[in-house]
């Protein structure tokens, strides 16, 4: 039973990790929590769904289309919702309001275009479960786990091994100084939004496959936020760690105390982190600008 719970916790954690990292990239650079990320995931989930419906795309092609759509949406969001705020050097609360409003806008647009009906992705997998003795592993969960891990590794390589990644890190450290050092800050910020949208696309498709499509799908972003807080806001490694920890804790709490009470414990854990170790597990130095 315990091994099965761990497997279930890992598969839930993989979803949270993708959400949390998309979230963390933007926080890393601009120091605000991008709640529009939920909207990105919803839109891309529908984009991927439309691709499967009209072009009968394979899983990889669907992921690619949804991710590109997410990346473009990220660029558009940066232009429409955030660029002026940054140019005016407005307080962080403006980013916050703008991102929440954008998230709501995207959710409502989806409701208008697709109504509140549910849709589901076609079945991509010939076999849905693998049995190892008494353990049951869902094939969609397994593939989601592998692709998420792969995406996160590629992201890490981009950030730590490429010139662009170095620029990204230096911008995240100090926006103005890196501009003075000859880094094109706008391009780097656009890159961050593109990457966040791209990851949002992958998580959107997987959320759609696991949980069917509906306009409020993006509200799962709250779990990504909690994971980021536990892991350390702005730290990518922290986001991943926090996400897997959250998935695991949730599954065990449901087993131990039941689903109704488990949010109380999650809340207490989050409070403890905020009180005792506000920098999260990763202990990143970043603090929200106030």
């Amino acid at each position: 039973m315990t091994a099965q719970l761990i497997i279930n916790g890992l598969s839930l954690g993989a979803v949270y990790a993708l959400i949390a990292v998309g979230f963390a990239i933007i926080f890393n650079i601009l120091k605000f929590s991008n709640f529009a990320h939920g909207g990105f995931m919803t839109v891309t989930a529908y984009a991927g769904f439309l691709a499967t419906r009209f072009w009968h795309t394979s899983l990889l092609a669907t992921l690619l289309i949804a991710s590109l759509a997410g990346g473009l949406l990220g660029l558009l969001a940066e232009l429409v919702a955030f660029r002026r705020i940054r140019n005016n050097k407005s307080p962080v609360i403006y980013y916050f309001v703008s991102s929440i409003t954008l998230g709501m806008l995207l959710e409502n647009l989806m409701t208008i275009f697709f109504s509140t009906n549910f849709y589901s992705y076609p079945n991509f997998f010939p076999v849905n479960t693998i049995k190892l003795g008494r353990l049951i592993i869902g094939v969609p969960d397994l593939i989601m786990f592998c692709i998420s891990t792969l995406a996160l590794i590629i992201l890490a390589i981009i950030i730590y091994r490429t010139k662009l990644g170095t620029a990204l890190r230096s911008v995240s450290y100090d926006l103005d100084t890196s501009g003075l050092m000859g880094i094109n800050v706008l391009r780097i910020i656009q890159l961050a939004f593109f990457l966040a949208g791209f990851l949002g696309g992958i998580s959107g498709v997987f959320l759609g496959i696991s949980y069917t499509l509906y306009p409020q799908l993006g509200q799962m972003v709250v779990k990504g936020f909690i994971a980021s807080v536990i892991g350390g806001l702005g730290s990518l490694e922290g986001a991943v760690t926090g996400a897997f920890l959250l998935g695991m804790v949730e599954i065990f709490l449901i087993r131990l105390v039941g689903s109704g009470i488990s949010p109380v414990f999650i809340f207490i854990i989050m409070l403890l982190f905020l009180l005792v170790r506000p920098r999260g597990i990763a202990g990143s130095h970043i603090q929200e600008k106030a």
Partner: protein
Amino acid sequence: MKKIVVSVLAIILALGLVACGQSNSSPGKGQSGNSQQGSTGDQIIIGNLQDLSSTTSVWGKAVTNGAQLAIDRINKDGGINGKKLKLVTYDTKNDVQEAINAYNRLASQDKAAAIIGPPVSNIGIALAPIAENTKVAILGSFIDERATTKNDGKPWGYNFLIQPSSVQQAQIVAGYTMDKLNVKKIGVLYNQANAYSVSLAKPFIDYVKSHGSQIVSEQTYKTSDKDYKTQLAEIQATGAEAIFIPNYIQEDVLAVQQARQMGINVPIVGGLDFAPPFAELAGDAANDVYFPNNIAAEDPQIKEVAAAYKAAYNEEPLNKAFIGYDSILVIADAIKRAGTPDPVKVRDALEQTKDLKGTTGIISISPKTHRPYGLSMVMIKIEKGQYVTKERYITKEQQQQ
């Protein structure tokens, strides 16, 4: 410059107030005319409170379309006592306060003879005491019994239900599971944060326990949960021979898919939300699912109404469309028997509805509970993605009622 802007704004505001005042006074003028409560001129107004723009709008639109279809047909045949019916619909946005405002508008300004209520229980419950004062009847499909009877068991004066209540439906499913599927050990998985889910789970559990079978595991989750594997594993471990899952459609899809993924291949029984498009959404996992439905797709009357619906709206009718259709039949019948569209007399006639042939069955309303009695439901099984009608079923107790 600033002054100019301010004064322009002030003028606009003032004009707005005048305009509002005028629109408010116009129904007053109508009232002073010879229009009588329940009708305006040669029309009889039937109110319709449905969610058209929020989370349950899929149902609201289906009920509205079904009701409009029935009205068009009645009007084509000459209306009732020479008067045409007219449906006046207001959007509740699935919000209790919006629904109360809309109800009051229908009763006082539009002079509705009777009102079709939404298929949402919390709105039905909120409207019950208000309707008792305002005295325009609501015929709803809110299945929570509190929407039709008070705590002391007496009916709310002006609320009526057109389909079997949650208790009746849960008993029908429980009876069918034990009698026809021969199952003795049953697990239950429901959403403890959703009144609809709870209102089916509790009477199901009571009925099973009091009729000699066993609830081996009772598992719950809350609305934001998406992963029920832990709960399902508990049920699996108890060796349940069937699982009762009375949830909203999307949660049904997740629960059934996850159960099948885990190798739980026992029959799954549930509520009306297993109706289309469930099978399409759940895919292969949907096999061996049973639920009670209001209608049998093979029934000639259903086929005929469904064809007319498709011709009118270019889409397949959902279950709720037939509820809307039947609501109009019941109200029209009551107006005919009352001989007048006066809301209080229509209410008295609604209470005496007997053996009315609707698309969802033979409808009789009990004056004691304001709910239908002896109304069987059609048990449906999903086989290879297809909905297969098994039989009409009703428990022995309900038959004798």
